[in-house]
């Protein structure tokens, strides 16, 4: 399959959804069945090809970029169409194509108001391209474009299909629709971050021209090579500023405390599929950026910033969990739980060790499937109850046993129960924090480890509390006369793969770690070399 290995495979994975979106544009809006079918088939092909990519991928060389290509693109600035995957991007790419398929299956008969499946599907397909593209890009310009590409579809998804509940804005006391507020907030926060990220990229580009290599480049590997081998000091005194710029770009997306406030609003206001994609993939773009770009290209700065990141990560863990305990809206609670969980991912990255970064990647995948599923279930429940207020819910396990069972199971996975996917990321992040990379402050990281471990208690606390309020107890009287049907076929079809993945990853984490370990080891080795020299 030489055509596949030489970059066509990845290209198709990334762009087939775009092609499908273009076809959708051409067909009339009334042809809903055809639109759904085209979107589903496209996402399935994309997913199927990413499965083929797993088989074509050489796990023995997982530390190297594979199945890629490099074509000249904008020659005047030496930006190339450079794509490829290594052991870190492979699981994330597969995750993104996988979740998109499930999102489309789920959408089959869950259309949020104002309906219009055609437009909604086009947005999902654009998102698919942006997400998969970010994970395969090897060039900063390409990365940036894909990274930004997800912004608009998500903005429209929240702004048009989002929650129409009225909220009062702080300070100005104006009443607006939740969806408008949340979408603009999401857009501005992310754009704010990306602006800095772009600046950082440009600075890297210009600085690489001054390095011993002497060529301006956007190529991530070349830049990393300069930073760790050729000319480690090439950024000079600009290095901290560049790191700070990238940090802002990625940290907003993760999101790290205190840049997280867009997240609860965006998640709560977004339609179900929007929340799922946000939680499952979009947040990972930020953490992936740290692992793919910040650490390899700015190893020394990463070292300097690691304690700050660790502290922010720990704050995110504790803060996110506490905020969860104060929520009355189920979906908002799940949204805040992401802050805490992504805190564990960032804690893993901040340790800069093989274990910590592996923890981060498996934590990303696990959070993607677990929280994605939680949002699916929360969405389906609010679809039936027409409320997300936990004080009105209760006895869900009695009203909808299967739905309640899946919610309970997923909550258990989310609190990091060993044997399920969520455990490994949390546990290994703590392991990494006990022994961070040489040169990092042991006391600080070990304190972070202890606080992180305490965070697991709070995590268990709010999830069990949610289960008690929503799932257990006697159903409230108001539901006695309401007809609530348990899970439907399309829901099961979308959820069962996630359930299976949660167990599979929990029992056999090698599914992810088998790919990531060599790639992570390579990054850590480079960092060690650069910092040591």
């Amino acid at each position, binding site marked *: 399959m030489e055509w596949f290995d030489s970059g066509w495979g990845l290209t198709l994975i990334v762009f087939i959804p775009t092609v499908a979106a273009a076809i959708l544009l051409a067909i009339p809006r009334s042809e809903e069945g055809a639109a759904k079918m085209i979107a589903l088939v496209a996402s399935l092909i994309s997913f199927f090809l990413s499965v083929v990519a797993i088989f074509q991928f050489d796990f023995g060389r997982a530390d190297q970029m594979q199945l890629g290509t490099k074509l000249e693109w904008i020659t005047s600035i030496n930006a190339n169409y450079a794509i490829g995957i290594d052991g870190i991007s492979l699981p994330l790419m597969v995750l993104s194509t996988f979740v998109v398929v499930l999102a489309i299956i789920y959408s089959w008969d869950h259309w949020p108001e104002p309906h219009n499946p055609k437009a909604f599907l086009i947005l999902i397909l654009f998102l698919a391209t942006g997400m998969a593209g970010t994970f395969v890009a090897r060039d900063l310009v390409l990365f940036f474009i894909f990274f930004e590409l997800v912004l608009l579809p998500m903005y429209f998804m929240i702004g048009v299909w989002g929650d129409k509940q009225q909220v009062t804005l702080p300070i100005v006391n104006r009443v607006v629709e939740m969806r408008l507020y949340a979408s603009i907030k999401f857009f501005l926060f992310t754009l704010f971050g990306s602006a800095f990220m772009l600046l950082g990229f440009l600075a890297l580009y210009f600085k690489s021209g001054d390095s011993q290599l002497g060529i301006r480049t956007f190529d991530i590997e070349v830049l990393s090579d300069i930073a760790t081998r050729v000319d480690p000091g090439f950024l000079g005194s600009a290095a901290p500023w560049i790191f700070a710029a990238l940090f802002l770009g990625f940290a907003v997306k993760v999101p790290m405390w205190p840049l997280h406030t867009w997240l609860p609003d965006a998640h709560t206001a977004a339609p179900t599929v929007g929340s799922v994609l946000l939680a499952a993939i979009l947040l990972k773009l930020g953490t992936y950026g740290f692992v793919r770009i910040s650490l390899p290209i700015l190893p020394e700065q990463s070292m300097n910033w690691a304690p700050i990141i660790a502290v922010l990560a720990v704050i995110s863990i504790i803060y996110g969990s506490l905020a969860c305990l104060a929520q009355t809206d189920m979906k908002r609670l799940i949204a805040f739980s992401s802050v805490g969980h992504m805190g564990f991912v960032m804690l893993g990255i901040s340790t800069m060790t093989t274990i910590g970064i592996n923890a981060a990647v498996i934590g990303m995948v696990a959070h993607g499937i677990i929280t994605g599923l939680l949002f699916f279930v929360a969405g389906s429940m609010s679809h039936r109850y027409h409320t997300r207020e936990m004080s009105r819910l209760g006895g869900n396990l009695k009203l909808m046993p299967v739905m309640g069972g899946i919610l309970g199971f997923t909550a258990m996975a989310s609190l990091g129960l060993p044997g399920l996917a969520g455990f490994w990321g949390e546990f290994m992040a*703590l392991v990494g924090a006990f022994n961070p990379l040489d040169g990092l402050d042991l006391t600080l990281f070990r304190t972070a480890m202890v606080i992180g471990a305490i965070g697991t208690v709070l995590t268990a606390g709010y999830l069990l509390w949610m289960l008690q309020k929503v799932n257990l107890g006697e159903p409230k009287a108001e539901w006695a006369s309401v007809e609530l049907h348990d899970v439907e076929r399309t829901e099961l079809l979308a959820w069962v793969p996630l359930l299976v993945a949660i167990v599979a990853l929990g029992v056999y984490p090698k599914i992810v770690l088998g790919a990531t370990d060599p790639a992570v080891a390579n990054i850590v080795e480079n960092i060690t070399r650069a910092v040591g020299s």
Partner: protein
Amino acid sequence: MVNLATLALSAGSLLATAEEEGHGVELSDGGLLAQYAWLMVVLPFVAALFITLYGKRTPRGGAWIAVGTVGFVLVYGLVLLISHWATPIAHTENINIATIGQFDIEWGVVVDGLSIMMFFVVGAIATASFTYAVSYMEGDIRETAFWASFSLFAGAMLVLVSAANILQMLVGWELVGLASYLLIGHYWEEKENSSAAMKAFLVNKVADVGLIIGVLIPALIVGSFRFHDILGAAVEGNPGLVKYGFVIGLLLFIGAMGKSAQFPFHVWLPDAMAGPTPVSALMHAATMVTAGVYLLGRMFPFYNSVAIDVLPIVMWIGGITMLIAGLLAIVQDDIKRVLAYSTVSQLGYMVAAMGAGAYTAGLFHLFTHAFFKSLLFLGAGSVIHAVHSNNMSDMGGLRKYMPTTFWTFGIGSLALAGFPLLAGFFSKDEVLASLNYASSHGTPSATFVMWIGIVTAFITAFYMARAVFLTFFGEYKGDPAHEPHESPRLMTVPLQALAVGAIVAGYFNVPGIFTPFTDWLSGREFAPGDHHAESFDIFVLVLGSLAGLIGIAIGYSFFFADGESQEARDRRFRLPGPIHTLLVNKYYIDDFYMLIVNFIKRPLANAANWLNGLIDAAVSGTGILMSVLGKFVYEGLDQRGIDASINAIGGGTGEAGGALRYIQTGKVQQYAAVLFIGVLLLAVGFFIVTSR
């Protein structure tokens, strides 16, 4: 990939170590029997999955499938035990499930004296409780869910017991916690029950913070999660382990305190009685709660080599726990709560023994206790089944109605009270004897704990006498229209079987005469380094037995009187007011914890949420500031300043200005413009800074 090479190596080095250690006994690899021990672990999970998916379509919610799998575990465990008795087995199987750096993460099954003993105990008690539950749970509102969770527990417990590495033990540890959560909260319609389930989970989770950290430190030092490597390194005096030994030992013990309900983590166990009674018998008496003791046993070579300073702490925690829990059992009216506090107290004995360095005595008490305590719980369940109440004030006189339950419960109570020649007599005596032994062998303070143990033996006998007399003697005080009757055979046969266990279990370790139990437990890879007296300690034996007999006698004098009213009894036995209040309020420990929980849930969580609003306000404030700034730049400078000067010169560009102002009213454009200007300014600044 199954790492065959390492497997062969580990098996080889295992034999080699055994010889080096000079056990005197040669350890065999157990052949096929040991290699297929994983079947015991896997089958209950298969059953749980099957019942979850198809239980509703299976007769009795899949009950008999569940019973079948634990029956298999019992038979397999028994065969293993017998062959281990003949030729000691120590064998480990490992399967790699991930590699991170130099770390191998594995699933493994360890088959050695310690785990075989536990396989047998889990199999035996589970078979009895499962069989009993077939009848007890008949017609339950959620029978399928019960059997799925109960099978899940059996599997999880076996994962824990068979763990060949410390990480797997953690996995099993949390999974039994999950099963416990599910089963305590089985009747989740009542908020009280779901709160009890949550409490159990969270209290354990707090203790698990210690466990998790305690697991990862030695693994990082040694570079492996395997017990084989960690214990080996400890025995050889690995400098890292020597340095961190105390911390690791303490952290692991904190984890053990949670699961084994030691003070101050004991609060969850009495509330856990909200679950169905067979659950209490199997999990919250015989097996799950002993996981902490098992952990200490598994890590014993570690404690004895590099964490020896932790052992006195362990001993004292055990001592404190046995006494305070025993006292609480006296004032309970709920028969299950009497037994629950009794369990906490007896777990205190086991932990104290471990702390005194008496590995065999601690585990022997675990072994005998499993039989008589599960017997007592199942007996209590039989009574509850008959009178439809947990409260002893609704019982009385039941010996006439339920003879089998009466005599089996009686045997269990006598065994627990340490009545001579029953199971508890032997094991409790060994615990006390080993405390006495430790007091003259390097741990003088063990004397105090021994005296606590003797006092507690008296208390134990007293509250059990109280329970038996209140339940089975006197007049029946329940609903007269509802005459109690004996439980069906499916419930009484397990009671009879366990009663046999409660009589004979003690004879497997008669010091100096017949000690197969000691041999079983020492048949493992690293010598546990047991400290215990080699023969009966007559002094302790007499004191301990007397304490028990006196306790029974005093209990008799207070509570035995056929046909006497509750009030008359109360007049005879009444604790002084303040003490009674203190005990009824459980020393206010629960209230203290609730204070902390409520602080986290209310002010702290609200503060976090409030801070969120604050950050939002700051962001909005910046936005407003920027838009005001933009407006000023546009209207003040752009329009008035520059334009005005041009207007002054050329005049009359009002139309253009109006058009511009029209565009400006669009909010999004304004945002975009502000953002653009802002980013532009920052970009300039950024390049100035970076180009230096």
